[in-house]
């Protein structure tokens, strides 16, 4: 029985590979490191290496390897870099937080790196199996991170809910993959598309469509698409705050990366437009439900959770019309803008969160803007950006995705998106109101440390700059999008 070694171009999975290797080493090295800050710094180094691993291939022809399982194109690299950025900032935020909350364990950073690698694989995957396993991989990592504050009850509850929900959703996802496989005989995204192109009957097969629906659901729950979002607020609230921030930024990026691959490569609009309207309705629901629910929140983490649901809806607007020129760029642009902004917002929460299990309410922000000018200003910038106020990144992002949606023929989606972003402005403004326009009831402590402030400042700066540099940022991801299909 002959054995043909597979064609393995490790460059195609360069960044995740580097991270996995580095994380494994770090896991071992950590045992001998007393100061966990060192571990954190080493993790940052690993991230830098991972980012660097993609540099030589940026702007090149896409490379496909591992029997078509993995791809390296600019989209993947962009996702990698976004993830590196997010993870790095998360690490900056975590260092002191973990210590203060007395949950400092060296394993945190390797698990974070492993999870990040898994997320990167979502961007590199070109096969439903690869995507499924990557998704499970990152899910397990996130379960661990969510429950990292063991034995805090909320942390445990978050992990538990996430895990049950995730496993439940995984069942649907794998069933969807099974059905797709059943009708097309393949799990390779590009081949699926070829089959669909070739076979008219296939395109109207209910089994295929049900499979597609299950795929959308299976990935959609990860990005908190309504009505598959209900885990989000509880998990975000209960998880250690840096993890919440990380989840809101990185998991979304990864989930959207996978959705992009699935929808864009396997079910292109020109072949199978039927999912568009479905996804558009879900996007509208996501925007509305997320924003409306956030209005009634008083706990800031829950509010940010619902806000992240809403933003998933905004990003979906671009996905709905992904066939439009510039859609992928806009999509990624939004993911970047959103990731930076949301992460920054969580960082401010981190800076203010006391040790223990107290709920952190919006009212606790009172007077922050004057007590901590930099922190307050940064938070204000994040909130305005999330609300979509120019000239911040969030505005440009919204403009791009709504323009894409409009161009794709979904003007009503853009309209709903715009109106729901007005609703969103209400609760974002409430944060600013509390920070600047109310006097504090009691002198609140804050825990601003250098790494945290650095992270916040970095995020804020990027949020401001991204808007003005919209063109370069768009070009960053725009080079080879078409070729990656």
């Amino acid at each position: 029985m002959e054995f043909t070694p597979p064609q393995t171009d490790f460059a195609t999975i360069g960044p995740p590979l580097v991270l996995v290797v580095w994380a494994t080493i770090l896991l071992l090295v950590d045992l001998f490191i007393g100061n966990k800050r060192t571990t954190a710094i080493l993790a940052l180094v690993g991230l830098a290496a991972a980012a660097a691993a993609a540099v030589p291939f940026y702007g090149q022809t896409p490379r496909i390897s591992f029997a078509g399982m993995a791809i390296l194109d600019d989209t993947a690299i962009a996702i990698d870099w976004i993830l590196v950025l997010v993870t790095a900032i998360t690490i900056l935020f975590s260092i002191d937080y973990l210590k203060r909350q007395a949950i400092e364990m060296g394993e945190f950073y390797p698990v974070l790196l492993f999870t990040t690698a898994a997320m990167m694989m979502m961007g590199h995957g070109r096969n439903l199996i690869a995507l499924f396993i990557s998704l499970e991989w990152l899910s397990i990592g996130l379960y661990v991170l969510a429950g990292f504050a063991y034995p805090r009850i909320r942390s445990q509850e978050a992990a538990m809910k996430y895990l049950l929900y995730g496993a439940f959703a995984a069942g649907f996802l794998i069933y969807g993959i099974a059905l797709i496989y059943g009708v097309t005989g393949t799990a390779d995204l590009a081949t699926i598309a070829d089959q669909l192109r070739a076979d008219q009957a296939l395109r109207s097969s209910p089994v295929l469509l049900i499979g597609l629906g299950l795929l959308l659901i299976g990935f959609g729950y990860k990005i908190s698409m309504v009505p598959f979002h209900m885990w989000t607020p509880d998990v975000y609230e209960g998880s250690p705050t840096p993890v919440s921030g990380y989840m809101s930024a990185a998991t979304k990026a990864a989930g959207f990366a996978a959705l992009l691959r699935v929808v864009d490569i396997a079910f292109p609009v020109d072949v199978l437009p039927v999912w568009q309207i479905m996804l558009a309705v879900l996007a509208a629901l996501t925007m509305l439900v997320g924003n409306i629910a956030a209005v009634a929140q008083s706990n800031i983490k829950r509010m940010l959770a619902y806000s992240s649901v809403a933003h998933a809806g905004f990003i979906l607007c671009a996905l709905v019309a992904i066939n439009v020129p510039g859609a992928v760029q806009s999509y990624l642009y939004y993911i970047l803008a959103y990731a930076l902004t949301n992460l920054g917002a969580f960082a401010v929460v981190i800076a203010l969160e006391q040790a223990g299990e107290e709920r952190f309410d919006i009212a606790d922000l009172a007077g922050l803007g004057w007590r901590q000018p930099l922190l307050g200003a940064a938070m204000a910038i994040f909130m305005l950006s999330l609300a979509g106020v120019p000239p911040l990144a969030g505005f440009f992002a919204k403009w791009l995705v709504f323009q894409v949606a409009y161009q794709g023929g979904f003007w009503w989606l853009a309209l709903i998106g715009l109106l729901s972003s007005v609703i969103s402005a209400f609760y974002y403004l409430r944060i600013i109101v509390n920070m600047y326009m109310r006097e504090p009831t009691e002198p609140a402590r804050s825990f601003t440390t250098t790494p945290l402030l650095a992270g916040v400042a970095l995020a804020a700066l990027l949020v401001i700059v991204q808007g003005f540099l919209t063109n370069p940022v768009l070009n960053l991801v725009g080079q080879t999008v078409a070729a990656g299909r």
Partner: protein
Amino acid sequence: MNFLLSVIVWLPLLGALILLFAPGISDHAAKRVALIWSLVVFAASLPLIPGFGFFDPSRAQLQLIERVPWIGAFGVDYHLAVDGISLWLVLLTTFLTPIVILSTFDSVNTRVRAFEAFMLALQTGMLGVLLAQDLFLFYIFWEFTLVPMYFLIGIWGGSRRIYATVKFFLYTFAASVLMLLAIIALYVLWGANSFSLPDMLNAMRTGQFTLDQNLARWLFLAFFAAFAVKVPLWPFHSWLPDAHTEAPTAGSVILAGVLLKLGGYGFIRFNLQLFPEASRFFAPAIGVLAVIGIIYGAWIAYAQTDIKKLVAYSSVSHLGFVMLGIFALNPIGLHGAILQMVNHGLSTGALFLVVGMIYERRHTRDINAFGGLWKVMPVYTFLSLLIVMSSIGLPALNGFVGEATIMFGAFSSPFLGWEFAAFGLLGVILAAVYLLWMFRRVMMGDVTEATAKLRDITRLELTMLVPLIALIILIGLYPAPFFRAMNESVTALANSIGPTLAAR
């Protein structure tokens, strides 16, 4: 290529950043720095006055064009230019800002640096709105103006400031996003990968870009929403009394003085130019709303006991005239509307200043708490009277010139007609009713114990009011140069919309 407009637009923001970040600026110094800075900006804008060789009033087209590609992928340009329509509003903005900053010398004593910085940032936003010729750039400035204003009301405002500022923000924001959708629609429909307004208009004129009639009307309405709320046109006005009442004096002045004008400006610049057919179609309806606003605002102002609220409702009424002038869709109406925007900025701005002065003295704005000011504060009252009369529309003062011109426009407009002018004139009567009622209660009457020891106007306050009053009188007696500078642009615009005079 010259950079005059860019300098005017960005200089204030630079000042704001300096105020925020430069170390060691005391509150006291911050006021001075801001004042000097705004004066510099004003000085920089002075060359725009016709006759200095920068702005040529004999040309209808955009002038002093600055255009640089910005977001190439989507054809967004950094594109500034000025023409007769925006010229005076630009100058009004640069003129009012130093006065407004001067008004903070007495009235703002907390977080001064932030206040002045927001004020300057706001100026950049407003100027940007007036000068941007790229739809997208315009929108950015348009939305950006909300932010500093939001903070100004929210931080330094009265007791219900938070409600007021959130309402202000959300209401305007909600309406503006509709405009964003319309802008996106225009971009997509045109398909030329450009947001440039002049280019788009050119394409429309040459027939390269035609809009379906129904769609154009919808888009018109989307723009209408944004501008109508900003103006504010009845019945979209309800944010204004709250915002005005709660805003600090400086905020009210700039809000009434410039921000509201951006709505009217937007109508002229965008609705009229982009959708001439829809403008004609909707002109009577908007005219009706404008007239209702004129009467309604005046009527309701009469029932107010809060002076600021009264002035706020008077703005609703006065801006109704502006809308009437705009949708007369003829050169006279447009002339009047633009001049009336300037006038309202001067008069109502001054009115808010005047109200602020007694608020500083008494810390109340309740009309019933005053009386007999004419006796204890004669100079103050005299100036107030002038301003009130300007607001009432007394001939020989600026308000009359604008309102009368608008009325001539509306009366002879083929889209409106004499009924609109007649009902609009009712508003003129009512203006006298509520303003004189206020004047009677506040300035006339016997001195009460509370008002007996009030100080007459200070030199600082006089410095604020005198330039305003000088312009009020100047425009009242000799508005011709103001009209002439806008004449070419306005006439060209009006001619592009359709017939300008009703058949006799």
